[in-house]
């Protein structure tokens, strides 16, 4: 009797499971650490399984630390960055894709150049400008600062996707009486929707994770984002490991949930325009 087991398939499966386990282990370890009693954190043999009898740790951090406020602020900044970035990137992306004009190459290159400057270098002038515009210590300021960083990237991502939309489709719409702006809104955007979703996720994650601007431009505790709040646990004299891990886990979950919801579009968007013809 011949074996029906496919060794190649089995090895591939094993490799995938191993990679998944390696990727997921840090999250799992955060859970285990947050639920391990303090005295056991430094035991010779580390606990490998979470102790769910200590699940109240998660309730405690919400009760004793303004985690909900941090998450709400992060959500406002991330969502604002995402929406504003997409709104501001669509027209430049369409322009770079569809129009011919003097300096087009230079404009595209300049957009890339903005990505070469680190946040730490720009934060001092940005702080001075925001001070003049009364944008310091506001979430609006953070949204604008983050958007300035994400718009160039998103413009290029969307340009790539718009390049893949056949020009014939637009010409047909124009014959039907559509104006240029109607074509962008009613024809182009729906056709690049998966890429739009991918770009949105990138902008959201940037706003969600950003630290330097959030630390420097905002000082009120009530406006602190989760990235700054989490870093604040690392004290000069002590660090509450349980709280760090519990809040870290909570901080990770909304972003993971968003990615899971949007992943179908993201994957489609990432590959959009990769094959043109």
């Amino acid at each position: 009797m011949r074996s029906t087991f496919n060794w190649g398939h089995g090895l591939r499966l094993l490799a995938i499971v191993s990679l998944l386990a390696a990727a997921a282990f840090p999250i799992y370890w955060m859970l285990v650490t947050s639920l391990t009693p303090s005295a056991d954190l430094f035991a010779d043999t580390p606990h490998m399984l979470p102790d769910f009898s200590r699940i109240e740790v998660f309730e405690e951090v919400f009760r004793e630390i303004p985690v909900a406020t941090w998450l709400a602020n992060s959500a406002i900044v991330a969502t604002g960055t995402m929406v504003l970035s997409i709104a501001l990137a669509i027209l430049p992306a369409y322009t770079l894709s569809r129009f011919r004009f003097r300096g087009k190459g230079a404009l595209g290159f300049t957009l890339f150049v903005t990505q070469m400057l680190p946040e730490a270098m720009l934060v001092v002038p940005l702080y001075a400008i925001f001070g003049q515009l009364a944008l310091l210590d506001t979430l609006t300021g953070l949204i604008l600062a983050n958007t300035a960083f994400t718009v160039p990237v998103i413009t290029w991502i969307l340009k790539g996707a718009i390049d893949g939309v056949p020009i014939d489709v637009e010409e047909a719409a124009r014959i039907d009486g559509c104006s240029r702006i109607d074509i962008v809104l009613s024809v182009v955007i729906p056709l690049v929707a998966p890429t739009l979703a991918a770009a949105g996720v990138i902008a959201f994650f940037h706003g969600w994770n950003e630290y330097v601007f959030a630390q420097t431009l905002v000082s009120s505790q009530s406006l602190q984002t989760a990235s700054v709040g989490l870093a604040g646990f690392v004290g000069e004299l002590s660090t509450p490991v349980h709280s760090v891990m519990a809040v870290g886990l909570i901080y990770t979950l909304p972003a993971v949930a968003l990615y899971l919801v949007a992943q179908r579009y993201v994957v489609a968007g990432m590959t959009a325009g990769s094959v043109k013809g």
Partner: protein
Amino acid sequence: MNHHFRHLLSISTIVATALTASAGFSAAFAQSKETLTFAGVTFSEAGRGDRLKAWVEKFNKSQDKIEVQPVALPFATLANTVFTQMGGGGGPDLVRFDQIDFHAAVAANRILPFDGEIDEGEYKFTAPDKYMHVGGKRYGIAFEISNYVLLYNKTLLKGGKPPATFDEFLTAAKAATGNGIYGYAYRATMAERPGFWQDLCNFVYGFGGRWSDDAGNLTINSPKVVEGVAAYKKVYDLGVIPKGTDASTYRRMFWENKLAMEIDNGGVAGIFHQQAPDLPFAAAPSPFPTPAQGLILAPLTVNANTKHKDAAFTFVKWALQPENQKDLQDLLGASNVATAVERSPEIVAKQPWLTAYDAQTPNSVPQLVAGFEIKTPEIQQVILEQVLKVLQGGADPQKAMDDAQKMVQSRVLRK
């Protein structure tokens, strides 16, 4: 489909506008009081942070027209964040700096001199107050003064007694190590540069070394400094330290009875006392040939960019009042404050380890290169790089310190 996406875009635009508008207005609510910000790392510490916020709140309750808002910044990024904000023309009105950053702030004119703002004769300042004057001007008051002594776990040391000499210390650390317990811990990585420097200073000072002499000459390669570095290496190679462990973690290990000894400042002892009341710890002079040890001196300063100068100095004067100084000293643990505050016999009876810290005060030396205070961060970098070569690369301590001396002369002082 088209209609759907147009609808979606409209909603997105409305949401974006609403989010940015609401976010902008949320902080700009009408405030009847003059509001100042006060940045410090202590606000984010377990135990001490909440007590310090309560102390600030006591000030707020005493005022009709001024309110101070605490701003908790992480230890590792406080100086970078505050200097960035100051460079941009803003920043917190009041800042609790570390001494090394205090000198940088003075040199860059980032903090206000206290000229005429406080009547010096009115207060009985502690000895380290002299370090608050630069170029004959006062630029701050000591917010926290903390000494270094040996903290030990009585149950983890043989006989429960602390070592008195360096040789006894090595023997005790070796004997305590094993079964998941370490004999001693200190910092020895550039990831914790400020702490690494503090720990190294304790060894060098303890062996009688100093980074410079009274005449303002560097003494980085002097025999006593080399002896201190060699002692640091001896402990590193003894197999008694949890190598690579950061200070937060090994302090927690001490708290959890997993570490027998560490040399640490009074703030740490205060945290152990407040957060782990059952921990059988005690304090003793550090086991080095001389009693000199490092000194943590954190000044309270006023930002030169402040638009609330009078209110900021109102807070400073309030902080200097005897009752408020006492409250501050009590909440900071084994630290001292700007003015001399007697500890009550009840507190000393409950916290006997306070005596060792208070007795250390005359022997505490700032962790700065005297005469080169502003250059200390750069000198620190060169010295620590050379010490790492000794610890990890097995370099000869004398040669490493000779190289450090030469490099500081040529690279930092340009001589």
